[in-house]
């Protein structure tokens, strides 16, 4: 649009500081007196995996044949203490998203797609639905501050338990499910009246700090007879310290969610201004694990802005054991699909831009509890789309790993990477392309 205007009048100059989106937000704030709440993740540009490149094999490295030689993608999560660790065929897992924020059909589709692809999916605030449990071969049960829908029966049905301390979109913040999405079923699962706004607390109600958390984790292990892995999920901020404390508290698996990670609803100012990029968090987490002698013993799952197999491979090369996807999984189901363009326009948005998940009017039938809209999402077809997408992510990551001469995705290493710019080199702790220079490190 900017170019169109400039073509008409080349003397017009838009302010980089007060651009049109910024001015529109000032006008919106002045009009309403309330901050902007929305879903999705950070939309600002931050240093990301696109700023990294792989060094494919040539003379000094020996590549693997793409269609002949195997490249392992399976990963075992949670073998530190659990009697039954989770074994996945692909290291790409589905991140926690709640029933309530998402429709039952969407949750079922996530379970179906993940199961076809041989990976796990994750519950969210609001508890476990039978559809989700039934369709998910490997289901991670989130243990959240609100404890909405949390009960020991479902806890015992889970294949792993994820204690959520925070998420990348809003580290330090709770949540709010607005009344328009609180149907009879959602209300019943959460023990609250229908139609009222439901606050999800930002802190757990019965423990404070890492020493208490160690006892809480022991309680969860006792209740489940030490059968299933216990994950700790944190939003990426002071990742080095958080990971060390999570290991000390007894986690089997640590999930680090970068600032590009999505949410169902929170303040825009929170999404865009709190947390650090996923790429910056991984080296901090890996350093913490390595210093404790726990890298690969306590597995690291990273999430936030992962879109393709290259992103997956780069996370693995930086030291992650697996990744989780949320926003990308919803897009694979049909979120923001241009086929609903007319309906997006009707609610003041556009395909590719829709982020008002909190309003429950999602034309794609995903982030809604509206019975008519929900019908638009066929859980079988959507599950198949997700499975296809997961296959592509895995194949792409394998392609890159083979090119680097690796017969296992987890054999990728930082030495396989270079950075395109100084910021990425400093954050990812890999050399600037064409140099041996890693900012902040001696050379």
């Amino acid at each position, binding site marked *: 649009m900017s170019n169109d205007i400039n073509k008409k009048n080349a003397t017009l100059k838009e302010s980089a500081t007060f651009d049109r989106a910024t001015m529109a937000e000032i006008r919106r704030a002045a009009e309403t007196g309330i901050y902007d709440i929305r879903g999705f993740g950070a939309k600002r540009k931050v240093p990301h995996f696109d700023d990294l490149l792989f060094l494919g094999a040539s003379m000094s490295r020996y590549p693997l044949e793409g269609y002949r030689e195997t490249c392992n993608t399976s990963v075992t999560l949670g073998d530190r203490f659990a009697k039954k660790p989770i074994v996945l065929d692909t290291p790409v897992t589905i991140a926690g998203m709640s029933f309530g924020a998402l429709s039952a059909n969407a949750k079922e589709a996530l379970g179906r797609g993940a199961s076809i692809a041989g990976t796990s999916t994750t519950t969210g605030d609001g508890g476990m639905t039978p559809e989700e449990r039934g369709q998910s071969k490997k289901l991670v049960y989130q243990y959240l501050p609100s404890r909405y829908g949390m009960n020991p029966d479902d806890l015992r049905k889970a294949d792993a338990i994820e204690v959520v301390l925070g998420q990348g979109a809003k580290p330090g913040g709770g949540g709010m499910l607005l009344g328009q999405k609180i149907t009879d079923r959602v209300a019943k699962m959460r023990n*609250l009246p229908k139609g009222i706004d439901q606050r999800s607390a930002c802190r757990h109600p019965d423990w404070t700090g890492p020493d208490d958390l160690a*006892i809480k984790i022991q*309680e969860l292990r006792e209740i489940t007879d030490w059968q299933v892995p216990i994950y700790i999920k944190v939003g990426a901020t002071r990742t080095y310290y958080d990971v060390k404390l999570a290991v000390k508290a007894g986690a089997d698996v640590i999930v680090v969610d970068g600032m590009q990670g999505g949410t169902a609803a929170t303040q825009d100012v929170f999404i865009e201004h709190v947390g650090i990029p996923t790429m910056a968090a991984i080296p901090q987490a890996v350093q913490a694990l390595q210093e404790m002698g726990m890298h690969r013993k306590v597995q690291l799952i990273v999430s936030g802005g992962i879109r393709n197999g290259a992103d997956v491979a780069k996370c693995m090369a930086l030291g992650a054991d697996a990744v989780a996807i949320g926003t990308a999984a919803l897009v694979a189901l049909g979120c923001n699909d241009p086929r609903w363009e007319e309906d997006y326009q009707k609610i003041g948005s556009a395909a590719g831009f829709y982020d008002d998940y909190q309003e429950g009017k999602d034309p794609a039938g995903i982030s809604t509890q509206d019975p008519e809209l929900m019908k638009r999402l066929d859980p079988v077809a959507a599950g198949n789309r997700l499975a296809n997408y997961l296959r592509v992510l895995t194949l792409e990551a394998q392609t890159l790993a083979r090119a680097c001469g690796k017969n296992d995705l987890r054999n990728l290493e930082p030495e396989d990477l270079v950075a395109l710019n100084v910021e990425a080199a400093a954050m990812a702790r890999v050399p600037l392309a064409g140099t041996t220079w890693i900012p902040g490190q001696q050379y």
Partner: protein
Amino acid sequence: MKEFDLATTTVRELNQALHEQASDVTEKEWTVTNPKGSHNLAVGLDAPVNVAIQGHAGYFCAGMNKSANVTVHGNAGQGVAENMMSGVVRVKGDASQAAGATAQGGLLVIEGNAGARCGISMKGVDIVVKGSVGHMSCFMGQSGSLVVCGDAGEALGDSLYEVHIYVKGSVKSLGADCIEKEMRAEHIEELTGLLAKAGVEEDPAAFTRYGSARQLYTFKVDNASAY
């Protein structure tokens, strides 16, 4: 009577043995000696057994209890009966903070005092405290009843949803959206039943009822100063 002496066995062995009662109750009466403040005693029970803990319990005693009747003959640490689903948990002494946190059913009786945040985010449990409760009790309480025979600390019932709160003594202050409410006949009846169920002799007419003003149920910018 099955006796577990924690001086010679572990909490793991105790809980494992109690969990095995979920499929088939082979022993109804259990007693635990020498608990010495151990954490996570009798957690995740799912059987109609009676468990007597002869001494002080640490954190999360009887956490997520279903069906069992657990009595602590001493004090209980943080989060006693957290997320209880059903059954009865009774603490003969005092309970630390977050007693009955997020509990969805059953009855929690504390014969002494309870610390801060008693009944935080409670979701259907009935809690009866013979003594007093600390600050921020029933914070974000969703449903169920909290009966306090002594006094309540600051910010009682902050951001309350639908819990019925009855306090006999003084309330230092009420939290956001918590107000004093009329004690009607149905509330006297409910409180009478709760006191009887807990085995506490008090005059229901001496209590004051508190509940949600329901003004913060839907986020409105005009309410921003209330938070």
